[in-house]
């Protein structure tokens, strides 16, 4: 197996970028500090020759090593925690407060949390790959524990008592004789301006007060009462409204546009044309929209029929001349016994955020500030600076929430649009709001995929061998690199699209979860890399795991049938990891699997995966109902079990997992991008339908298996792979027919059952 331990979704910070904090408050400690203390803000003594490798620190502490980059306490005892991760609706603002409050022995409400901002927080790369708790949660927990111990040591020094006699409680250190001293009094000068240690004195699982509790989300009250919650709600003094006129197709070039009439429209401040980048700025939002519509009418484009045949994506994928990567190889690729052979296909699909992307940018005396719902403020800062030819220090990117993104949607592009327009119209803040058709047609899609399986079972009812091949693009085209920003591509001085680098990584990309966790002697898993991207693609929740687990878990049911075994029993027979077995057993038990298949027009299906083969374990059992005359299917009941390691906020895990199951159900039953040979044609919610309330299940149960003392395991994407497979397996159980093509549209269902 070729393993390059470099995740496409790597959230490691990049060395060498040092930022002074923006000075906030006037507390004793808040003077200045280095965000990335590889290169400290303070002059440092030169390192001794041949300095030893710095020790590995927990989570993102390894990249941003000083404690005061993560936690600061001012003279009044106000605690501020900094994370490079962002809230995407997954509840990270709540869970990170819990982790910090736990180890600092304070209440979560006493933690002031600052999320990603290139002027203030550590560089934790992208908030992606379900790694926020693993990386940032681990860093903050360890930093908080070390800060607590430093405070205890400092109190012991001042009182001249053994530190073992002291404890932290309610923002104070308390002595046995009842003396107390507040955190704010203890923290002076450079007390926390130290590098973190590799080991921390973490609280033991039986002592936890805040972690493990289903604390209510801190952001929900504001969101349900009309508070300023999203970048869409940001209103700055003197702000102007902009709209971008996107090309009608991926290949289109702007030929000519007469802007004179539009410039005379009410409220219009400026029309900006730079190559094929066309935008309008107006005083009022509806004025900007009206001017955008007029510009669309005025613009003349040239277009090329460069898109593949939507009805034969298999031919497009198989025609690739890309490299072939070996994902896994063990024993012989020969498959013996009773054989199952199949081809599965997944279409292009969209993130489909309910709020189209939005950003605000302000160019003020050569200093650019961008407010964006990007998943990565630092990479965006770098890409925007490159696009505008600015010094990186002149660009600040501040995260503000958007609508849920589920991966790389239009956020970065909207930020670039706003930045480019603000550079052309300096002095006033510019708000760019994408229209629905911009988001549907121009967000990077989840790539189409093709998978082929040949696997067998022997007379002993065990898998003999497994031969699996997949065809896929890389699932990531995030910035850095200005060329990954639409605005930079469309400018007259266009930035070239950076060529993605194909490799096989531990976390997987197109090949994520392509190697089954099941134990058997012979396997070969290959990725036929497809470098051609006629449609722009990038990371959609779970990347390749959606299609790969769908294929693998559909195959597991077919092999169970060949073996004459119950599908849950068949999975357990091939699982050795006790935590994997535990979620399978729990889901089956809570579902009532042993009581047999449901009656009537309902089928049942089961599926399992461990996300990325190293994150959360998830098994799901569900019931699917079928209306034979119309081909309509609906998941009526789903029961899942998940092990995310030590559970910080069990209800947060349930909420995300319920959401994952329903979203993946929507992908599986309804969703595919449509296009002709030139243009994307699915540009709104009627041409790209998703699940609506009448198709929502009756119930979705999620059982969280807590693993106290175990590392946090990425949770947010764990349901995306198992869900389509469980649906396909339920359909197979009910009708005797296997579905190979996603999505399971009514037409395909009717065709499969001969209606």
């Amino acid at each position: 197996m070729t393993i390059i331990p470099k995740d496409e979704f790597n959230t490691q910070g990049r060395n060498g970028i040092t930022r002074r904090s923006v000075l906030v408050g006037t507390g004793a400690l808040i003077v200045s500090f280095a965000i990335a203390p590889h290169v400290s803000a303070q002059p440092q003594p030169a390192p001794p020759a041949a300095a030893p490798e710095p020790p590995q620190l927990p989570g993102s502490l390894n990249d941003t090593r000083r404690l005061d980059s993560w936690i600061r306490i001012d003279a009044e005892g106000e605690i501020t925690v900094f994370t490079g991760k962002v809230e995407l609706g997954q509840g990270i603002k709540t869970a990170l407060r819990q982790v910090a409050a736990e180890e600092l022995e304070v209440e979560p409400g006493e933690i002031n949390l600052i999320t990603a901002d290139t002027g203030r927080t550590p560089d934790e790369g992208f908030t992606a790959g379900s790694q926020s708790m693993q990386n940032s949660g681990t860093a903050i927990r360890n930093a908080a524990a070390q800060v607590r111990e430093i405070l205890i040591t400092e109190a012991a020094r001042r009182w001249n008592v053994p530190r073992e006699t002291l404890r932290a409680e309610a923002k104070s250190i308390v002595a046995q004789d009842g003396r107390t001293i507040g955190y704010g009094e203890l923290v002076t000068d450079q007390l926390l301006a130290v590098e973190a240690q590799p080991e921390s004195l973490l609280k033991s699982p039986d002592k936890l007060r805040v972690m493990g509790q289903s604390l209510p989300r801190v952001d929900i009250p504001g969101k349900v009462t009309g508070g300023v919650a999203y970048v869409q709600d940001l209103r700055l003094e003197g702000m102007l409204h902009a709209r971008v006129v996107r090309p009608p197709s991926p290949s289109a070039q702007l030929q000519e546009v007469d802007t004179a009439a539009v410039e005379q429209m009410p409220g219009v401040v400026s029309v900006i044309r730079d190559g094929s980048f066309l935008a309008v700025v107006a005083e009022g939002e509806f004025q900007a929209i009206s001017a955008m519509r007029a510009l669309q009418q005025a613009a003349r484009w040239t277009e090329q029929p460069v898109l593949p045949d939507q009805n034969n994506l298999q031919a497009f994928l198989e025609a690739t001349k890309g490299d072939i990567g070996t994902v896994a190889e063990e024993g012989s690729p020969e498959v013996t016994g009773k054989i199952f052979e199949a081809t599965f296909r997944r279409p292009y699909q969209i993130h489909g955020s309910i709020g189209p992307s939005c950003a605000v940018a302000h160019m003020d005396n050569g200093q650019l500030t961008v407010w964006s719902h990007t998943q990565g403020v630092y990479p965006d800062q770098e890409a925007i600076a490159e696009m505008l030819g600015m010094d990186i220090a002149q660009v600040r990117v501040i995260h503000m929430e958007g609508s849920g993104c589920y991966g790389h949607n239009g956020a970065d592009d909207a930020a670039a649009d706003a930045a480019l327009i603000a550079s052309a119209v300096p002095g006033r803040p510019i708000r760019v709001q994408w229209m629905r058709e911009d988001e549907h047609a121009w967000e990077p899609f989840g790539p189409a995929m093709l998978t082929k399986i040949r696997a067998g079972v022997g007379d002993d009812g065990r898998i003999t061998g497994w031969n699996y091949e997949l065809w896929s693009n890389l699932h990531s085209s995030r910035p850095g690199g200005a060329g990954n920003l639409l605005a930079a591509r469309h400018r007259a001085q266009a930035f070239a699209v950076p060529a993605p680098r194909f490799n096989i990584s531990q976390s997987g990309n197109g090949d994520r979860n392509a190697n089954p966790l099941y134990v058997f002697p012979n396997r070969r898993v290959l990725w036929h890399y497809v470098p051609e991207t006629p449609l722009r693609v990038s990371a959609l929740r779970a990347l390749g795991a959606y299609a790969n687990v769908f294929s693998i878990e559909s195959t597991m049911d077919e092999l169970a049938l060949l073996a004459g075994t119950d599908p849950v029993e068949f999975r357990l027979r091939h699982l050795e990891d006790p935590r994997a077995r535990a979620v399978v057993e729990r889901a089956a038990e809570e579902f009532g699997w042993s009581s047999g298949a449901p009656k009537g027009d309902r089928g049942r299906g089961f599926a399992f995966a461990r996300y990325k083969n190293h994150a959360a374990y998830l098994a799901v059992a569900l019931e699917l109902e079928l209306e034979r005359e119309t081909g309509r299917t609906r998941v009526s009941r789903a029961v899942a079990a998940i092990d995310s390691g030590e559970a910080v906020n069990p209800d947060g895990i349930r909420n995300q997992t319920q959401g994952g199951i329903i979203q993946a159900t929507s992908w599986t039953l309804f969703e595919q991008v449509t296009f002709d040979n030139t243009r994307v044609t699915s540009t709104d919610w009627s041409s790209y339908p998703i699940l609506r309330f009448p198709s929502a299940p009756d119930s979705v149960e999620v059982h969280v298996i807590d693993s106290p003392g175990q590392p946090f395991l990425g949770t947010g994407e764990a349901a995306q792979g198992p869900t389509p497979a469980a649906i396909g397996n339920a359909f197979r159980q009910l009708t005797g027919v296997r579905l190979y093509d996603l999505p399971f549209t009514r037409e395909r269902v009717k065709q499969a059952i001969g209606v």
Partner: protein
Amino acid sequence: MAISLNVNGETHEIDVDPATPLLYVLRNDLELNAAKFGCGLGQCGACTVVVDGEAVLSCVTPVSLMEGREITTVEGLGTIEEPGPLQAAFMEMQAAQCGYCIPGMMMSAHALLRKNAEPSDREIRDALMTNLCRCGTHMRILAAIRRAGELMQQASAPTERRAG
């Protein structure tokens, strides 16, 4: 053109192009955040407000049609300090992930519950037919609306029942 708008019980005089969709007036002129831009096409429900008791898609409703009508947005249901029953129910059930669609959901539910405090599951789903949620929070949204119905009934019940 000057238009008089009654929003959440207050009257506002607005000078605006009469073709402007109500959504932009609410968000930009009145600085109300709850109603959201989702599609501008009347397909997703993120912009839903209640006009004279009915759920209305404010992104496709010209403001000129709103003169003399009673408009309610989520801001009119209560405040963060004193949330109304729907707001309290959504908090209690933790019925949000990103939360962007939620104000629209609440206004569709508000129109329903005003007429029918004990809607069936089917009636709630039908009332939310237009409202899209992408995070998959559907089960909690349904639960929150049922819970809001209960809270409204408790609030209007005689004191002795509440005490009991």
